[in-house]
């Protein structure tokens, strides 16, 4: 699958998730995360792993996190994904998390490049007695979190405690020495109408397939 088609398909899938989520509950939040991973390149603590969690707050309210558009800044995913609870997917396409368990975790090793980035679609259903929480962290070769200034050594942490939470509520952090320059930045993604996004993605995927089929003739 060529990158352009993969991106289009990913967009379509995620837009579908977004659309279904929109119909079922509070509108999800979408945001982009970028991390400077240059200090990790060639470091003896590697290979490192990307760790995502969506942990349950204890009530009957469900949330999902969909992660896509992974960028490795010259690096690449490695090995198989490790999945716990309501986790699925891999870093080559889409990672999906739901809070079906208490700990719902995805991690997969990668070859560090200059940066790592991804997009997030996160539902905003408020669970009780405490909120569900989404987090992103980087693990070292021993699968220990690299130490950060964030809660639980996370680089990104989100309490899903409001149906209106926004990017300002996304807590970002920096790693501590020896990776002090590894820092996460969260930014908003323009939010086109989800159905329009779905349609655009499907049209793009369909057009690509039509082109490929036509070229075989």
């Amino acid at each position, binding site marked *: 699958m060529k990158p352009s088609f993969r991106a289009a398909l990913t967009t379509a899938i995620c837009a579908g998730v977004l659309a279904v989520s929109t119909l079922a509950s509070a509108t999800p939040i979408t945001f982009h995360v970028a991390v400077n991973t240059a200090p990790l390149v060639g470091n003896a603590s590697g290979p490192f792993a990307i760790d995502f969690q969506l942990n*349950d707050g204890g009530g009957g309210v469900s949330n999902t996190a969909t992660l896509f558009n992974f960028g490795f800044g010259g690096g690449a995913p490695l090995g198989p994904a490790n999945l716990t609870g309501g986790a699925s997917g891999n870093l080559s396409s889409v990672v999906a998390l739901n809070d079906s368990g208490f*700990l719902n975790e995805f991690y997969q090793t990668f070859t560090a490049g200059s940066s790592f980035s991804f997009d997030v679609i996160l539902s905003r259903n408020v669970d*009780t007695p*405490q909120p569900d929480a989404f987090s992103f*962290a980087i693990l070292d070769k021993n699968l220990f979190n690299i130490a950060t200034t964030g809660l639980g050594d996370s680089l990104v942490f989100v309490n899903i*405690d409001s149906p*209106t939470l926004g990017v300002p509520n996304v807590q970002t952090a920096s790693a501590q020495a020896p990776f002090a320059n590894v820092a996460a930045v969260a930014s908003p993604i323009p939010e086109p109408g989800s159905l329009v996004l779905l349609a655009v993605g499907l049209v793009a995927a369909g057009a690509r397939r039509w082109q490929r089929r036509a070229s075989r003739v």
Partner: protein
Amino acid sequence: MTLRALFVGTLTALALTAAPREGFAQFKTPHTTNVAGDETTSLGTTVVVNHGLVGVGRISASLPDPFGETFGSVSSLQVTNWTNLGNGSYGGTFNILPDRGYNSGNFYADFAARIQQVSFVFTPYTGPTGVGGTSLAEKIAAQNQILFTSGISGVKFTYLDPTRGALSVTTGLDPAGGTATIFGKTMPYVTSYTGLQSPSSTSNTTYVGINKLPLDSEALVLKADGSGYIGDEYAANIYYFNASKQIVGAIVPPAAIVPHAPAGTVNFGSAGAPSNGRRNNQGIEGVSLSPDGTTLFALLQSATIQDSDSSNDQTRLHTRLLVYDVSSNATPAAPVAEYVLTLPTYKANGNNGAVNKTAAQSEVVALDNSRLLVLSRDGNGLGNASENPSVYKSILLVDTRVGNPTNVAGTAADAEGGKVTSSPGVLAAGITALSRVEAINMLNGTQLGKFNIQLDTAPTQVTQLTLGEKWEGMSLVPANDPSRPDDYFLFVANDNDFLTSSGLMRGPDGTIVSYDGFANGYPASRLPVNAGAGNVNANDTMFLAYRLTIAAAPTVTRGGFVYDRRTRQFTQQVTVTNTGATPLAGPIYVALDGLSANAALANKTGTTANSTPTGSPYITVLAAGGTLAPGASASVVLQFDDPTLAAITYAPRVLALSSGTP
């Protein structure tokens, strides 16, 4: 309110459903303190900051009232005409309910129930040093923060007497087994009386034709229109009077509280214990009306006969709180709720031996429809002939919404002889008592000393400065301080039992007789040293004033969990917010009640040992010396060991305890 705030509020409310109760502590030694500054405690959604004693006043025990009888005995208290005078002082009127008059041995007084009134000016004193005075007389004179600005006036209660067919005053004489139908119900009644004409008489006389409703008045509610309620000890009734102070109705408690002797026969006498129902001289000591006028609380002084062992006073701890809806009927037939309040127990002589007494309650003040202040105390101090030190005198905060207390109204526990215990002093399985915490420890030697009041440290000689034994009146008024909108003054006054060596009281024949209350049975160490020549021995009526903040308790908000593979622990942030208008002093803790067995709080400060539920891990959120300003928050990160990675569950409990350990 924003949606975010709404959700946070919901989480907070859920978090506060498990709130602290004071442990069923036993006080084997004197429960004293010397804290000079603020003390903070919390229960459910309420925080109480005790800013300490800020004033004292005194009325001579030898002062006659307008009816020619000795003034005394604040068995209940209510302040009216409360005004901020704008010059640092406040004005008001004390409405004082005395009980049944002086009694000693086989002498009971024909004392008509009444309300005494006296105007006062209150100037709080908050200076760092004592109020001054060197000699006894000077020290007494310096107890003048509550100054009385009028003479004593009074009004006697009346009722329509069935024998006279006319209005009559009541009597303090013991009814023994006498009854009559009044207010359409069976009431105690004195037709004749056999006893002493005066305390110094040597033989009994029988007096006939008395024909009066007997009242041993112990609790007063005075509504704005002048009507109100009286809590009574003879019958454990709650009498309702109109604005003219005419008693026009009565709330009769559930049969389980009505005294019967023998079983099946009502008997309101106080000379001996009944077969079942309220103990003799342990009636409705506390009655209070919610500020909105809809909920009437009535609290029995201590456990019923059937719930206790008459020879073991420490088994009297499980008393009952009756809750009546009086929004449409001033004298409802039955309570809408009835709860058990477990009172503290103590060792009478404070020698660290096994407890042998219950700190019975003497007054309640309703803060609203669910929260009460309850005065629980020993009987030690000036006025008691026994050489026992003061061991326990505290004001408790009770909240019927906290801890899911069991409502036993209308159950078998309400029937004649009905119990809330499985054996004397042991609460029945399935019944949860009310939650409570100590809001004020009255035995604060530092603060009392500042106002020239001495703790009773028997067998040390008592003086007129020694703290009295019976504190039975409380009234709460707003401080009317715009900078402290949640602040109040709590006035507390004593029942001095009309104890003076120069007393006047109406005997059973209706004439005034003189008495010396210290004439019989008082060892020399218990005779209060007085101010010198011309003074008599007296257990004066004393008034104390405390300043309190009563506000919303700090709230706790929990964040979500994240698993840290470096520490192999789940972490979670909790945040405590002061939603009140008053700064809160640290330390403030969060306890984790019912923490799931798969998890342990790795960074706990300790484990609760003094506030129930005990055994819960807790963590310091704000250290001692810190202050949580209004609207400010403090956060802490919890670290959980959870080897199985299973769900972590618990109920957070905020402990705002500026003194003591959780």
